[in-house]
């Protein structure tokens, strides 16, 4: 078990390193540096800025400095938001995204698992067909469609919910629901097929033969086995939630890290882009490792390598 964990951690660290390196060099292939586009800057001012941000040094030195800084949690300063360090920006904006993302994940699990189970248990009947239809739509409709159509129906047309900002609990409803739609639909489908598979297994028959009631059989024997594939989905679901936040935060004007990432691309704020990329990538990779390890723990059949 320990060997497995170490292997995964090393692989993760390598990947993060790779991502950081790629990010760095990609950013620096843009000729002329970040300040070229600023019309109002004279050549001297440009040189001064370049010096301030260490961009006059040879690229490999810049790389070394940057990577060392990253190890210490220092992602340098924002190029466009004067006075803000990238780390501070991340620190102030990430909790917002985390809150919405976390709620979305919880909602997706809380609704997806029961819906999928209900569908499996009522296979072929109207409940199953309805749930399948909803779930298929859920994974087909792009998130921006859900967001915008939802915003239109509930915000503009019916006027029930606010459409931008995050100042009250009501403000959370649309963004969280829109963000959870795809994972919820995915989990529903996953749970349904997993449950159908489990129900047909021999050990369910053994449980009935012992004299257990249908309910006991389901909750004790079926669920425990059926939920395993959902656990493996947790990693990708998290990655989705992070990238989904780009859309949701842009549409609902939410001051989160995703929206920040998108706007810093338009603004060409390189340091913020780099820092955010590395931060998000690290988050995704670390979560995947944790999920993998958790899965190995809860499924006794897996041979640990």
């Amino acid at each position, binding site marked *: 078990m320990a060997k497995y964990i170490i292997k995964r951690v090393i*692989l993760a660290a390598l990947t993060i390193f790779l991502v950081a390196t*790629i990010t760095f060099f990609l950013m620096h292939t843009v000729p002329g540096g970040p300040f070229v586009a600023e019309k109002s800057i004279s050549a001297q001012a440009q040189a001064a800025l370049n010096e301030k941000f260490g961009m006059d040094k040879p690229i490999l030195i810049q790389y070394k400095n940057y990577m060392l800084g990253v190890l210490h949690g220092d992602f340098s300063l924002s190029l466009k938001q004067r006075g803000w360090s990238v780390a501070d920006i991340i620190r102030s904006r990430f909790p917002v995204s985390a809150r919405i993302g976390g709620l979305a994940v919880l909602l997706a699990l809380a609704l997806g698992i029961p819906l999928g189970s209900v569908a499996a248990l009522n296979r072929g009947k109207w409940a199953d067909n309805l749930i399948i239809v909803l779930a298929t739509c859920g*994974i087909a*409709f*792009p998130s921006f469609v859900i967001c915008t159509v939802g915003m239109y129906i509930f915000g503009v047309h019916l006027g029930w919910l606010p459409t931008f900002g995050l100042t009250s609990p009501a403000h959370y409803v649309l963004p969280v629901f829109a963000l959870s739609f795809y994972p919820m639909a995915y989990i529903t489908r996953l749970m349904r097929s997993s449950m159908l598979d489990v129900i047909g297994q021999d050990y369910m028959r053994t449980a009935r033969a012992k004299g257990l009631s249908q309910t006991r059989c389901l909750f004790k024997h079926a669920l425990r086995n059926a939920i395993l594939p959902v656990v493996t989905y947790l990693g990708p679901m998290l*990655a989705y939630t992070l990238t989904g936040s*780009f859309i949701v935060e842009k549409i609902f004007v939410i001051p989160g890290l995703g929206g920040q990432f998108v706007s810093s691309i338009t603004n060409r704020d390189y340091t913020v882009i780099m820092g955010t*990329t590395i931060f998000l990538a690290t988050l*995704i990779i670390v979560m995947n490792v944790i999920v993998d390890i958790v899965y190995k723990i809860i499924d006794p059949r897996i041979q640990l390598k």
Partner: protein
Amino acid sequence: MTKKNPLSLQLNVDDFLPATEDERQSLVQLRPSVSFWKDAMRRLRKNKVAMVSLVIILVVMIFAFVIPSFYPYQYEQQIKGAVYLSPMTYSVDEQAKIDAGEHVFPHILGTDNLGRDYAIRVMMGSRISLLVGIIASAIILVIGSIYGSVAGYFGGLTDLIMMRIVDIIYTVPDILLIVLLSFALRAPMDALSAKPGFQWIQTVGVNLISIFIVFALLYWVGMARIVRSQVLTLKQSEYVTAARALGANSSRIIKHHLLTNCIGTLIVTTTLQIPSSIFTESFLSFLGMGVAIPMPSLGSLASDGLNGINSYPYLLLAPALLISLIILSFNLFGDGLRDAFDPKMKS
């Protein structure tokens, strides 16, 4: 000889005569055997949902590829005075022309903020989305299946190394990389597009090229894994061994077996990859990282339409609903294909 009463249950001596071969065979029912493809196509045709989806896909294809050639408006054509027209209304100038006896083709979906006919823009947008989806899926199919079959066929160390690389690529977050790549490629692409013969880069847009490049770099791994596992299973499958035991000429018959089984999976996976690619493209276009203006993509149209959601909802709803329809239809058809080729997998 006892008389035979047809209603009696009494036994008759004749009943105990041995039954003939024909009489016995009439009881044995054999269902006619069908070939693999015919069977699959039959199942597919019976699947109503899949058939409806196929029809929708064809209609959308016509809508995107055929109709624009006959349409009276161009997607970049800005009509003066016809800004933000609601669907099926005319601008003042146009109304005047109609009164004067001219025939002005109606703006079925109204116009946008620059007076461009929205219907044609939505059509072109669909065309871009579909093209991206199909081309990207083709790229993924080619790279993925070559990589996967090589890894699966050779096995051993080659396989191990190749799959380790796949594992690493899998962990890299794709959207982030697309964003970065399109960003970084902008300048070199701009420089390249200035050279003769490369002007098309301008129309298509740097971002779109980046999307294709990233698809070629990252998204094939799923396909590679699937193809590899297919090849591995088939290599060891019993009917291959049986065919060999029967003296089959290895290359021909085994290719026959391998291909028949692989193709089914390949078709299904590719068909399901298309909506996924369209999904990604629309996502990026929505964020402004898709095709270059003025060429529309359903994603960018929706993004622009968002600004006017309060007053001009149709600008947002039309592309949004259309792209949902396209992705949904491809998904449903792909599911139908999968059920048709392998009903055992049906959940």
